[in-house]
């Protein structure tokens, strides 16, 4: 099993993010830049630069932007670390998350802006009065939603390190990594326990998570507990194939907020607003990666109860369709080529590119697109409906249609 990694002949650049065409990127950022609260020229310049920057610059720009947004709320080292982790994902042949999370932020905000402009009752569902406040919850949910990934891939990283050192004949160090792998499961469980047991001013991570899941999914405490247990149980299985990064990410965010509030010396009452923000974001992060076998819960993600959770699940899946870093003999590369928006519709056109399309590749790409559609349709349409439609279509760079779908909100 370990040897598979050595055989892998990966061809990638370290920070290759998911790319949107510049035009599409500009369309998304335009909406954000029009906001009154984005009035600092320093910030505007970085947002403006992002659309035009090449892949080698984007992570630096995103880091500056998120540090700006979270100054005084979360430590800047947190974001720097997540950005660095993208090199690790790249070494595993996977796309990084740092840029992807930012893309979810701007994509999602474009959608939120369109929705809140459409109807006052929709705006109220976001639980805050001003676009600035709504934005901050969405910022927290979107930019942090994959912070749990490092935990999910820890075992893969160790395997990789072992394989590298072994290939170089540095067996002593390789063995160290093998030894780490032996204790991995135990360490991961310990880590999770550690994360969820953080406290501040009488607030505990786990109860907060349970509360927010209960509220968002409209389930009772028992069911919430059951869901959390199901998620935790996944960590005991084969880690790399299961999804626990939502739960882990939520725990990281919660813990870091506690840490920050502790430092600021403010009381929970004084931070009432921040706690409300945190709770909405936590639920969104925790639920965004529920696996299909937890479909019962996915179907319960209700826009009207927690629009952030609903939209994070939706946007995360729309923004990111394949995790492969580079096109290979099985997978093409994909780009969001075009975004057209009308009053109540968003039309997304994706293009999948490959130098040499084969029938098998096209077949599997179609399958993957279909799977994604199925996953998106697992969430129930908001009731009452928002009267908004997201249309997506996929084509190859040769113009062949791979599939199209409509998501009715």
């Amino acid at each position: 099993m370990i040897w598979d990694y050595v055989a892998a002949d990966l061809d990638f650049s370290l920070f290759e993010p998911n790319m949107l065409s510049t035009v599409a990127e500009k369309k998304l950022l335009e909406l954000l830049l029009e906001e009154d609260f984005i009035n600092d020229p320093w910030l505007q310049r970085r947002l403006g630069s992002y659309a035009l920057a090449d892949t080698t610059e984007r992570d630096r720009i995103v880091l500056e932007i998120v540090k700006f947004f979270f100054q005084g709320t979360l430590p800047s080292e947190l974001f720097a670390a997540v950005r660095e982790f993208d090199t690790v994902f790249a070494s595993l042949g996977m796309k990084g998350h740092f840029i992807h999370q930012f893309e979810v932020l701007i994509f999602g905000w474009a959608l939120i802006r369109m929705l809140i402009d459409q109807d006052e009752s929709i705006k109220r569902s976001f639980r805050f009065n001003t676009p600035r406040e709504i934005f901050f919850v969405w910022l927290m949910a979107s930019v942090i939603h994959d912070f749990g990934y490092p935990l999910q891939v820890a075992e893969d990283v160790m395997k990789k390190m072992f394989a590298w050192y072994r290939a170089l004949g540095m067996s002593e160090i390789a063995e160290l990594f093998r030894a780490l792998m032996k204790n991995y499961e135990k360490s991961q469980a310990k880590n999770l326990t550690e994360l969820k047991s953080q406290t501040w001013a009488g607030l505990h991570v786990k109860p907060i998570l349970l509360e927010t899941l209960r509220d968002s999914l409209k389930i009772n405490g028992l069911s919430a507990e059951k869901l959390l247990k199901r998620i935790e149980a996944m960590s005991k299985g084969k880690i790399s194939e299961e999804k626990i990064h939502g739960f882990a990410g939520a725990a990281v965010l919660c813990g870091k907020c506690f840490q920050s509030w502790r430092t600021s010396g403010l009381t929970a009452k004084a931070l009432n607003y921040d706690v409300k923000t945190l709770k909405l974001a936590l639920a969104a992060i925790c639920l965004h990666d529920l696996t299909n076998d937890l479909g019962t819960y996915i179907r319960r993600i209700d826009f009207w109860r927690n629009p952030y959770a609903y939209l994070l699940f939706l946007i995360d899946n729309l923004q990111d369709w394949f995790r492969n870093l580079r096109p290979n003999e099985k997978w093409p590369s994909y780009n969001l080529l075009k975004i057209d928006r009308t009053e109540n519709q968003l039309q997304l056109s994706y293009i999948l590119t490959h130098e040499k399309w084969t029938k098998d590749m096209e077949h599997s790409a179609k399958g993957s697109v279909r799977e994604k559609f199925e996953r998106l349709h697992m969430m129930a349409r908001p009731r009452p409906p928002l009267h908004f439609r997201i249309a997506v279509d996929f084509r190859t760079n040769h113009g062949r249609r791979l599939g199209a779908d409509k998501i009715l909100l």
Partner: protein
Amino acid sequence: MEDSIAPGAIRISLFQTVPGKEVKVKLLLEEACRREEIKEYVFFKALGTFDIALICVTKNYDVSIGKFGPIPGILKSIDLLCYSYRINTAESLLNSIRNSNLIGLSLLKVDPSTQRAYPEIERTLRKYIIEQEKNRFKKGFVGLVGSIGWNEIIMIAALDNVNKIVKELLGMSSVFVRGRNLPVLAKTLSFVCVNYRCIPPPSVLAKGLKHIKVHLKKYPFLKDFVIGQKNVPLVEITAKPMYAAGIKKYFRQEGFKVAYDLLGKVDLCFEPLPDRTWADCLAVILHFRRKFHFKGFSTSTRLRLRSPERKSIPQREYPWSVDCVDFSYQTLSKKYGERVTASLANHFYSFNSLIQNPIYGSAFLDMVYYPKHILDTGNELDNKARLRLAHGAREVLRYGSELRLCGTFQSIEEETGKFSEIQGGGQRALLALEYLPYRVFRRLNRLWNGFIITSHYDKLMHVNEVIQVPIYTLWNPQSWWTLYHEIAHIWIDVLPQVVSREVPEIQEFLIIKGDHRYWLGKLMELAAEVVGFELGFFGDYHLFFKLYWKHITGIDPTQRAMYDFGDYAMRSFFTQLFWQRFGNNLTTVKGDKDFMDVDFLYSGFLKHLEEIEKSAGQRLFHGEEHFLAAEKAQQCSELYRFASHLNSHVTSHNLRLSKKHLNSSNTKDVISSLSSARIWWDKISCPEAVVYRILQMKNVDFERSIAAVITFWNQQVAALRRRFQ
């Protein structure tokens, strides 16, 4: 008064039609005039090569017969762009000729050799014509208009007497400068026209010759004038040989004698019998054109006058000659290769034949240095650049020559220059425009080897040393500032130490950029914008900004697709930055640090975009502002070293003119003269200051524009005179 330009542009449009179609063409032209809201116009039936003459008065030259749309039946048209002097205002002139049944038009070209010796000859000639009119004519009048084409003056004689008109027109050609014994005119081209109100309407024309004669005999000036011995019209006909016998028979029957069968382009010529009246003669011509419209190709009526032999007065010409383009075919072939040389040499031969023409050779004087420049350049260039030079040179030489040939009598009478937009020629305006680059280069201690050509695009450009301008620039001095940018390009092209890959500051910039050719092109444009600003704006950035964006946003909407407004915003912003940092204004950009501070530049660029949209009164960037500002601010910050390097050249070459020129007595006098639409004949000490002051003038209407054109034309004529001495 005699040097003051009057309001109103005068157009004399001449049309040659398919025989028999002139009445229909005239009706369609009239309809087009009404459609284009031309209110002041009059039609004449022309005798000569052309069949219809339309004389109209419009606000300026922007109204053109080119906008009339296709009119079936027109074989050829010439549009002479004219203006009037206050002594014969456009309106009074049109009223006078409108009331005349018969007019004679004479296109007068002042002898260039006399002009060299006696620069004010054109002014003297005008005085002479005016005095003649005052003293000699009790009935009718002789008026004059100026032209911006090859010939300087067009004389209009409205005398209701064919003999007198012909005598007057022919008499002009022998005028000379008394005392100096210099010939005044190099050439005249004259023809007589009959007011269209005297021409029978289509219904009468259709009834036949008898009815046409009855109609024409209503007019004493036609009925009472019997064709005599001295003054005999000659009807020339070009026709297919198969119809020759029928045509001869027709004319014989109608009282003409067959004069000759001719060799050459014209096939037959007829002369009326002596006892015939002008009414008879004109009736036959009109009827013939209608009857034989499929059979004849063209008719031309020439008026002849047997003048008494006078004692010849010896006149002398100031000798001047221009050397032909001299080159060795073999040497040229080594430089450009066989195929390119064959074509380039052919262009040089053609140019030589034009420049040697004794009548209109002077029209190409301003181009003479260019072929020599092309022959002297090229060795230092690589193959690709050398070929580009040859291709460009070939095109501009051809186009420039054709442009200058338009409106010469050669092109008026023949088929040359059919595809040109200014078929009546704009030589005087072209020369006027050349004065600015000539003087700027002289200030920079360089000889300018180029010339001006026009284009149908709004875009200005240069092809090596030749500058291409949109046509309207010719008669609009408030757009002459646009030349500075092209002048700057030419200056930069000849000084590789300003912008080239070898400049260390540019190397430093390029090393961080990908596409070096693209970025080098961008740097060239930025440098040209800054240099252009420094050359002619006396540090007045606000005026530059206002004009720059008025120009860019005034571009024809269909051509806008070729323009990236963001790119132009970068250019004006960079110029502003340069001016703030290195010019006299140090209030905003305090130092080098500011120039490199991306956040500072970003805010500045956003403000710049806002100012552009405010000045344009429209949205131009459509939500792209933040992206543009982010991108361009980053680029600007990387350009500090380049800007600093550019400033060293701006300073060392003294590109920046002192503001004292703006208030010099000469500039004030010139501007005072132009403000009252009066031509300034004396020297101009700083043309850049004059152009700057023109830009500041609020009301530069047609008459002031033309006064500036003729003033600058005169300066350039003098400059050429000095150059060829």
